[in-house]
C-alpha cells in the first residue's frame, strides 16, 4: 500500500478584487483533479513553474487548506476525515525561513515543536541533539534564530520537519534562495531519508534538483499534472528532437515568435538570466538541428542579437516542460 495516495484533488480559491464598492469575485483554480501515489522509500518530485499549484498541493496534504473536491490518504488516513491522524504522520517543511520563532533560540524552537508533537523529554532531547548535529547547527543551538543566516534558518526548519520521524515527509521548495553549500547538504539529507524508508514529496522549480532527487517526477502546470514518470523516461520522450541552446546578449523576447515560424522548429523559448536583464539563452527544439542552425543564426544577426555560444545539448527536464507547454520553467 502506498504511504500517500492522492485522489483527484482540486482547489479553487475565491478572491475579491477591485475597490471597496466595486468588488468582483474572482475564481482561481490552483489545482485541478490531481492524482498520484508515493510509496515507502520513494521520492516524488513535483516540478513546475511559479504559480503552478505546488504549495497548494502541500498545504492541502498537511490539512492547512481545505480541498474543494477529492481526497488524499496519508499512511491510510483521510485528510478530510482524520486530519489529526494525518498531521501525526507528516513531517512538513514549508517554503522559506519564516517558519520559526525568531525570538527563541534554535534549540528552544525544536523543543517547543517537539512538545507539540507529544514527544517526551528524554526522547526529544536525544532527537534534538542528533538533528542539530545533522544540519550543522550544534554550535549555534543557543543563538536566537534572529541572528541566524538564511541558510541556517532553512536548515533548522528542515530539522524541525524531521523532529518526530514521521513516515511521510513533505518539502516545499526546500532549497529556494539557498547558498550552494546548504542546498547540497539538504539534497544529501533528502536522499538519506529516502534510504531510511520515508515517502517523500518534494516540490521544486529547479529542474536539476527534480532530476537529481526524484524517483519519479510529476510535471505540474496550471494546476494539472501533465506528465509523470522517472526522470530518465521523461527525458527519453524528447530524444526525437535536437535541442539547441544559444547564449545571447541583447536578447529580445519577440525573436522566439519569429523562430517558431520555421517549419522544422517545434518549440523556441527565451529564458532570461535573473541578473542581467538582456542576456539569457534561447532554447530551440528542432527536427534536424544542424540543418536549421544557419537560418536561426541569420535571424538572430538581423536583429542585432549577440550570440556568445551555441551548444547542442542532451534533453533536460526543462526540455520536457517546453515540449509539453511551449514555455520555459523559469518565466
Amino acid at each position, binding site marked *: 500500500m502506498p504511504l500517500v495516495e492522492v485522489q483527484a484533488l482540486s482547489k479553487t480559491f475565491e*478572491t475579491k478584487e477591485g475597490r471597496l464598492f466595486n468588488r468582483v469575485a474572482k475564481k482561481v483554480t490552483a489545482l485541478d483533479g490531481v492524482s498520484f501515489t508515493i510509496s515507502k522509500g520513494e521520492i516524488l518530485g513535483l516540478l513546475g513553474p511559479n504559480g503552478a499549484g505546488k504549495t497548494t498541493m502541500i498545504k492541502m496534504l498537511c*490539512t*492547512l487548506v481545505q480541498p474543494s473536491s477529492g481526497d488524499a490518504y496519508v499512511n491510510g488516513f483521510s485528510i478530510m476525515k482524520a486530519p489529526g491522524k494525518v*498531521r501525526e504522520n507528516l513531517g512538513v517543511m*514549508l517554503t522559506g525561513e519564516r517558519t*520559526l*520563532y525568531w525570538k527563541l533560540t534554535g534549540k528552544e524552537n525544536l523543543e517547543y515543536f517537539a512538545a507539540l508533537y*507529544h514527544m517526551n523529554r528524554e526522547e526529544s532531547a536525544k532527537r534534538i541533539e542528533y538533528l542539530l548535529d545533522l544540519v550543522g547547527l550544534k554550535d549555534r543551538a543557543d543563538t536566537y534564530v534572529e541572528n541566524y543566516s538564511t541558510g541556517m534558518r532553512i536548515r533548522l526548519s528542515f530539522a524541525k520537519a524531521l523532529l518526530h520521524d514521521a513516515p511521510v515527509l513533505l518539502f516545499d521548495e526546500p532549497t529556494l534562495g539557498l547558498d550552494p553549500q546548504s542546498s547540497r547538504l539538504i539534497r544529501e539529507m533528502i536522499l538519506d531519508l529516502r534510504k531510511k524508508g520515508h515517502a517523500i514529496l518534494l516540490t521544486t522549480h529547479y529542474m536539476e534538483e527534480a532530476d537529481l532527487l526524484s524517483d519519479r517526477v510529476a510535471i505540474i502546470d496550471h494546476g494539472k499534472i501533465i506528465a509523470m514518470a522517472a526522470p530518465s523516461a521523461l527525458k527519453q520522450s524528447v530524444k526525437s528532437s535536437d535541442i539547441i541552446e544559444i547564449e545571447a546578449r541583447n536578447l529580445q523576447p519577440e525573436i522566439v515568435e519569429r523562430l517558431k515560424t520555421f517549419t522544422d522548429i517545434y518549440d523556441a523559448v527565451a529564458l532570461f538570466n535573473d541578473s542581467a536583464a538582456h542576456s539569457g539563452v534561447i532554447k530551440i527544439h528542432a527536427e534536424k538541428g544542424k540543418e536549421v542552425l544557419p537560418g536561426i543564426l541569420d535571424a538572430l544577426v538581423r536583429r542585432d542579437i549577440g550570440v556568445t555560444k551555441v551548444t547542442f545539448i542532451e534533453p533536460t527536464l526543462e526540455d520536457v516542460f517546453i515540449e509539453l507547454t511551449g514555455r520555459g520553467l523559469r518565466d
Partner: protein
Amino acid sequence: MTDIAGTTKALSAIFMKELKHYTRYPGNLAFLFAIPFLFTFMLSAMGTFVGGSNAAQYFFQRTGTQNFFVYQILGSAIWIMTWVVIEDLGSALRNEQIKGTLEQNFLAPINRFLLLVGVALAHIVISALIFIGVVFATVLVLQPGSLLSLFLAMLTLILGLTPMFGIAFIFSGFVIRFKEPYAFTQIVNMIFAVLAGTYYPVSVLPSWLQIVSRIIPQTYLIEDMRLIILFNKSLVDLYGHFILLGVMALVYPALGYYFFKRFENRAKVTGDLSKF
C-alpha cells in the same frame, strides 16, 4: 506517552513560549504597568478641575468611599487587564500569522483549543502580575488594612477574567479570518470601559444601557473588587455575582471557541492561515 501527559506537556510548552516572548519585549510590560496610574492621575485631575473643592465630598456621597484613588485604580487596572486579555490573544495569533509560525502550530497534531488556552493562560499570568504590581502596591500604600481582602480580590480576578477569554477567542478567529487586529478590539475595549463603570458606578448610565453592562463580565469584576477592597465585603456577600461569573466562565469560552472554529474553517477554505 499518555494522552493527558502529552497534552499537559504541549500546553505548558505553549504557555512558556508565550511568556518568553513577553519577557523578550520588555518595553510592552513597562507600558502596561504605567498606564493604570496615568489614567488615574488624569481622572483625578479632571475630577478636581470640574468638581472644585467639593469634589471629594461629592465623590463620597455618590460612592460611599473617600478613597478616590483606590476606587479609580481598580477600574483602571481591570480595564488594562481585560484589554490585555481581549487584545493580546488575538494579536499574538495575528503576529504568528504574519511571521508564518501560526501554520507551524496548526501543522502539529494538537487541538486548536489547547493552543488558545495555552496562550490565554500566559495572559492570565501577565494580568495577575499587573494586578499585583499596580493594585497591591496602591492598596498597601493607601489602605494597608485591606491586605487580606487582596487575596480574595485575586480569586475574583481569575474567575472574572475567564469569561473574558470567550470574547478573546471570538476576536482571535476574527483576526485570523479578516486580519484586522485592532479595528475590532479597540472598539470593544472602549465600549466595555464605558459600560463596565471603569471610573464611575454603572448606575450613572441610562437604564437601557445598564442592561448591556450586565452581560459584560468586567462590570461585575470592577464592582466586586471595589466591594471587597473598599468595603471589606466577603465571599458570602457576593455569592450571587460569583455564581453569575461562574456560569459566564463556562458559557462564554465555549461560545467563543465555537465562533473561533467557524472563522478558522473559513480560513482553511480561503487559504488565509498564512496570509498577510
